[in-house]
Each structure stands twice: as structure tokens, then as C-alpha cells.
């Protein structure tokens, strides 16, 4: 038996001998961790830089400056600046005339080609201009118009001059016109005023994210208004009020199951319940928000319950000890202390909802929607859907617009997460 006991000198010797080995293990663990983080950071840098490099040009586009003769009788025939009057006016013709005076196209065919050089949104741009500033009437002022997407691609070098004319999207004639405009210094490369203020459009030079951005905000607000109170109430009930029995256990298990349900399933449910049974219209942010609320509810409930559980029992005991009722304990002590955790969970849930397209497919929000939604009842779409739609359009210029929209969506996401961190830091209490 004696030989099994190790004398202290021997023991310290064993420990001393193994120190190097154990340190090496420690160091290896550190190294593995660093490699893992290094990989993650590399991927992140690669992702962000590739998106940024591709998307950055999407914020810019080519414009042509034309001297427009603001003839009131032609632009605004009824003279009351109403939408109808401007619609019946000859805004397009006036822009074309201004263009023709510079490039001087000869013959019907050349004129037809020349007309298409300036974006088809030219009439809307002109009428919007006079609506905001009627003083322009009677003057000749220079106005910037977006160039057609094919010319934009040509000026960027995506469509090459060397390609034979039959395989090029733009003719030799148009290239001549563009050169002429360029020589007179009328073509400029500027920050696009369409990407932020424009809405969905079939013409890539006019396409922007305004409609989708407001659609996202409306959808998320509906989602937040429904999911946050419901989620917090459920969490408080399950943690503080409900007795622990078979039924609450069943509910708990199912909430966890719900969190793992693929999001498209919620879309099918939304279609079946909100549209088919309640008869709500398709494609509206209200239905979208409700579907996303169902999707984010489990996330909010789970994180809220964790936050409530983290409130030390001593706080509750102290409150009960001085005679507070259950309601007072919950609303005066537990919820305020659990709030940072609840908010973080909610914002993460919202960020998830912001990036969803699958559940919206079923309820008609994956659609080409031009008008900017003014309320939750107007048809609207959301940012990821807009990106998805643009990625599928045939026109070349949409590739840059897609990356630009991705940058905007990422910006939105990062600011939401930053807000979550700020809230947590500000409200967090340590004990």
C-alpha cells in the first residue's frame, strides 16, 4: 500500500515535469480560437469589401444637363398645376426638343433613337420640378436628367465600343450622340437621386428603394406592436404567474418548437388565416407585419423568459417582504430589471424579421410595387424582396443597384443592432 502514496517531492516533480505540456495545451487552445476568429474575420472582410466594391457604383449614375424651356402652356395646359393637367402636358416632348437642339438628329430613325437616350422618367422629373417651384415657368433653365440604363452601362465601360454593332445594345448612331454630349461637357457622373428617392421601376436608371424602405418600416412597426406586448406578457405569465404543471410544460415545449419552424410555413398560415378567412387584401404591410410577428414571437418569448429568470430572487423576496402585491412585484421590479434583456431579444427578432422574404411570398408582398405605401393598408414590399426582385431583372444596371440595396439593408441591420447594444449598456444593471 505504501508504494501507492506519492511523497511530496515526487509529486512536485511530476507537476513540474508536466507544466510545459499543460502550458503547450493552453497555448494550442488559444491558437485554435485565434484561427477560428481569424477565419470569421477574413470572411466578414471579404463579404463586406466585395459588397461595398460592387455596390458603391450603384449609388452613382450618369446625368445629362439640358436647357429646358419652361413653357407654361405646354407643360401645364389647364394652368392649375394639378396632376391631371401636368399629365396631359407635353413634358416629354419639351425634354426631347431640348436634346435635339444639341445633338441635332437627322431623320425619323435617328430621332426615335435619340428620344430613348434620356430616361423615360424625364416627364415626371420635369413635372415634379415645376410643382415644387412654379417660378421656373417662363424661364430657360438647365436641368439634369438621368441617362438611359444602356448608355449608363456604355459610359461605365460595361458595353464596349469595340464590340460589333450587331451585338451591342446601343447603335453607332447613339454612341456618336453620346460623344457629342460629352464633348460639350453635358454628361456628369453624380450621386444618384433615384436610389434613395425612387421606387421600384422597370427602368433601372430610375429604380430606388424608397417604396421598399417605407414598406419595411411599416411592416416592422406592425410586427413590433403585436409581437412585443404579446411576447412579454407570455413570458411574464409563464415565469411569474403560471404554476409549473403538465400544461405549462407542454406550452413551453411548443414555444421552443415554434422557434424552429421554417419561416415559409408562417406565410402559408398567414395566407390561410388573414387573407382567406379574415378577407384582408393581399400585398399589404399589415398582413406582412402580422405574419412576421408570429414568426418573431417565440424568439421574444424565449429571450424575455431568460431575462426574467436572471432577475435575482432576492429582489422579489425583498419586495414581497415589504408587502408588495404580485402585480407590484412584477411591474415595479421584475419587468424594469428584465427590460434590457427583453429589448435585446426583441431587436434581434426584429432584425431577423427585416431580412425575411419567404413568409411574404405567400401573402403577395414579393411583387413589383411602384407606389410608396402611405399606410399599413397600401400595397407594399420590403427591402430584401426588392433586392430579390432586382437580382432577377434582365437589365445590366440592376446588378449594381442590387448591391447598393444590399448595402442599405446591411446599414439598416447594423444600426438596429447598434441600438440594441446601446440600450443594453444604458439600461443594464449589475449586482
Amino acid at each position, binding site marked *: 500500500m505504501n508504494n501507492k502514496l506519492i511523497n511530496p517531492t515526487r509529486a512536485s516533480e511530476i507537476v513540474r515535469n508536466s507544466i510545459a505540456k499543460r502550458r503547450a495545451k493552453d497555448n494550442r487552445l488559444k491558437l485554435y480560437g485565434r484561427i477560428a476568429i481569424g477565419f470569421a474575420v477574413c470572411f466578414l472582410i471579404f463579404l463586406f469589401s466585395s459588397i461595398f466594391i460592387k455596390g458603391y457604383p450603384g449609388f452613382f449614375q450618369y446625368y445629362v444637363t439640358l436647357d429646358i424651356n419652361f413653357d407654361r402652356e405646354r407643360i401645364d395646359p389647364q394652368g392649375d398645376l394639378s396632376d391631371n393637367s401636368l*399629365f396631359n402636358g407635353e413634358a416629354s416632348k419639351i425634354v426631347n426638343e431640348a436634346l435635339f437642339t444639341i445633338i441635332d438628329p437627322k431623320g425619323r430613325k435617328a430621332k426615335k433613337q435619340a428620344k430613348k437616350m434620356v430616361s423615360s422618367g424625364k416627364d415626371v422629373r420635369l413635372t415634379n420640378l415645376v410643382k415644387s417651384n412654379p417660378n421656373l415657368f417662363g424661364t430657360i433653365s438647365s436641368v439634369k436628367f438621368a441617362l438611359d440604363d444602356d448608355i449608363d452601362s456604355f459610359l461605365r465601360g460595361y458595353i464596349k465600343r469595340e*464590340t460589333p454593332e450587331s451585338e451591342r445594345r446601343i447603335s453607332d448612331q447613339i454612341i456618336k450622340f453620346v460623344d457629342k454630349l460629352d464633348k460639350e461637357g453635358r454628361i456628369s457622373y453624380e450621386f444618384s437621386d433615384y436610389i434613395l428617392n425612387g421606387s421600384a421601376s422597370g427602368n433601372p436608371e430610375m429604380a430606388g428603394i424608397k417604396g421598399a424602405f417605407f414598406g419595411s418600416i411599416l411592416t416592422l412597426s406592425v410586427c413590433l406592436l403585436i409581437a412585443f406586448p404579446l411576447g412579454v406578457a407570455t413570458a411574464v405569465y409563464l415565469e411569474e404567474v403560471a404554476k409549473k404543471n403538465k400544461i405549462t410544460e407542454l406550452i413551453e415545449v411548443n414555444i421552443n418548437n415554434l422557434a424552429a419552424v421554417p419561416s415559409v410555413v408562417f406565410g402559408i398560415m398567414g395566407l390561410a388565416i388573414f387573407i382567406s378567412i379574415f378577407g*384582408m387584401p393581399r400585398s399589404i404591410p*399589415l398582413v406582412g407585419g402580422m405574419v412576421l410577428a408570429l414568426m418573431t414571437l417565440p424568439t421574444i418569448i424565449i429571450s424575455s423568459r431568460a431575462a426574467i429568470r436572471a432577475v435575482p430572487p432576492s429582489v422579489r423576496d425583498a419586495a414581497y417582504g415589504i408587502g408588495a402585491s404580485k402585480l407590484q412585484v412584477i411591474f415595479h421590479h421584475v419587468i424594469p430589471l428584465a427590460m434590457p434583456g427583453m429589448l435585446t431579444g426583441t431587436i434581434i427578432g426584429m432584425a431577423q424579421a427585416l431580412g425575411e422574404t419567404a413568409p411574404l411570398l405567400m401573402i403577395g408582398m414579393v411583387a413589383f410595387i*411602384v407606389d410608396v405605401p402611405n399606410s399599413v393598408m397600401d400595397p407594399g414590399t420590403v427591402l430584401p424582396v426588392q433586392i430579390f*426582385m432586382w437580382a*432577377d*431583372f*434582365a437589365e*445590366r444596371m440592376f446588378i449594381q443597384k442590387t448591391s447598393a440595396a444590399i448595402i442599405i439593408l446591411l446599414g439598416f441591420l447594423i444600426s438596429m443592432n447598434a441600438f440594441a447594444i446601446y440600450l443594453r449598456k444604458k439600461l443594464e444593471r449589475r449586482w
Partner: protein
Amino acid sequence: MKKTLLVTGIISGILISSYSHARDTLSLAGSSTVLPFARIVAEQLGKNPNFKTPVVESGGSSVGKKGVCDGVGTKFIDIGNASSRMKVKELDYCNKNGVKLTEIKVGYDGIVVANSKKGTLLKISKSDLGKALTAEVPINGKWVKNPYKKWSEINPSLPNIEIRVYGPPTTSGTRASYAEMVNQKGYCGKDKIAKAASKERGDKKGKKCRAMRTDGVFIEAGEQDNLIVQKLNEDTGAYGIFGFSYLDQNSDTLQGAVISNTAPTFENIAGNNYSVSRALYYYVKHQHINVVPGIKEYMAEWTKHWGSEGVLSDAGMIPMPDAERAKYKDAMTSLPVLTAADLKK
């Protein structure tokens, strides 16, 4: 507590108000081939201050045809877009739900088999093309799974490279039209051996030939035609099946296969020389006209742009001949109800 009450109040208020909300925006869905043209027309209509811009959903021809037939009421779409004609079976579903439709043809679209300009230009007969991608082929009188791995195995004059073709999924009208025109009519209708073998298995019309290969040679690439275009630029040995407008937009990097001695050009498709082309349709629900504002105006908007000089032909749609345009313009006002007899014509 007060806040929670307020929030619940607001939400239930919104919910209740939605019950009485009639839709004032036109709602369309369907073929991703018609979508780019429909959105151009929709946007033009939206410029008119009296109408909201219609909402155009994608989803594929079957979604358009089924969606418009789902029923009457503003929760259903008003117009279904399709790049393959309605079938009698699909019309039966409509009749069952009490939906009356008018069919409007708007133009044509060629289906191209294209690859990267860095690859080999494919010059192939329609029958050989069908032979390459049909699921089953007759060998020694028996229908077996398509064994061909290389183009040159089908016909020694074809390139000695692996057959690898990206194409649309089953919900797509492009796919349905392709299978009908190339596999069924081109291969089982023209190739003598296949024709005889089809007759023998009691499939005189060759409908069984419509199935595409599922052994990885034909790769479904989703409703996103742009994705196929991108893949072709990277994978120069592969070919892709999609609508002509995508070839038109990418004519500097892609080349369209010459099928039965005809190249897929605008002139050839418009002149009916290129054999793999199909008509594009939309189906208007009668019961929604005058209920949802703008349906008649939307139809009329098409007539302004569908000519050979219009914006739709710039976007790659092949215009109809004058006589057909006049016929469908009439149909927009007379609104003939689509019947099974019409579809059999």
C-alpha cells in the same frame, strides 16, 4: 398598463377597419417571362394620376393561371399572366369556382438554348435537342432512361462535350412550352424511331415525352433566369434554357444555339422562322372589371406599347402581327368568355 391598452386598441382598430377595405389597386401574378413586360405596362398606367400602379407578382405561369381561377372577390388576383396557354383542365378549375375569363394574347417570346461566347456554338436540329433532354428514349424498341452523356453521342456532328443544361422548374411556362415544342413535337413527333415507339406504347401524341431528364444532366435553376445567365458566364461548357429577352440583354457575352438552321434573332422569331417560340397571355377575370378600378385602362395600356416600335419590343418581347393585334384589341372591349372549345382550336 395604459400603454398596453392603447396598443391593443390601435391594433384591433386596424383589424376591424380592414374588413370593410375594398382594394383599389390592380393585382396581377404569374409568369416570370411576362413579368418584365407587365411591369413596364403597369408603370406606364401608374403615371396616370387617376390610377394606382398595379401590383405585379411573379411565381410562374401555373401560379398565374391557378391564382386567377381561385375564386371571385378582392382577396384574389384580378389578372393572371402566363407564358403557356391555359389547358382545359385549368379552365375546368375556373368554371368550378365560377370565374369567367377573357384571354388576351400580347406577343411572343422565343425560348433560346444559349451558352457563353467562350464555349462552342451549338448547331442542332430540334429533334436532336429533344433527344438530349427527354427523360426516356427508345433503344431497340424499349423505352429506357436517357443514356446520353455527351452531345456527340446523339449525333457525331455535335460537339464532343458533356451535356449540361440549366433550365426553369416545373412551375414555369417556359419549361412547359419547351417540353411541348422540343421534346414532344420536335423529338417524338419528328424522329422516326421515337414516333413509332410512342405509337407502340399507346401515346400517339407523344405527351409522355414531355418529361425532362432528372439524372443531373438537366439542372433546374429556379424561376430566376438571371441566375442561369450568371452561371453560363462562369461555366462555359454548359447551356441554359430561358426567354429571348435575357439573350437580347446579354448579347455581348452569350450566344443562342442555332436550332434547325435558324438562329434565335428578333427578326427570325417575329417572322415565325424560329420554331421554339410561344405566345404570351394574360387572363382577365370578368367579375372584377368595374369592381377594381383600372382593369380596362390596364388592358388599353398594352395596346399603346405592344407594337414593333413600342417599349415592349425594346425590352425583348416579340410583337404580334397587325391582324392579331387588332383581334385582341377588340377582345379587350367585347370581352368574350373563354370556353373549352376556344382552347381546343
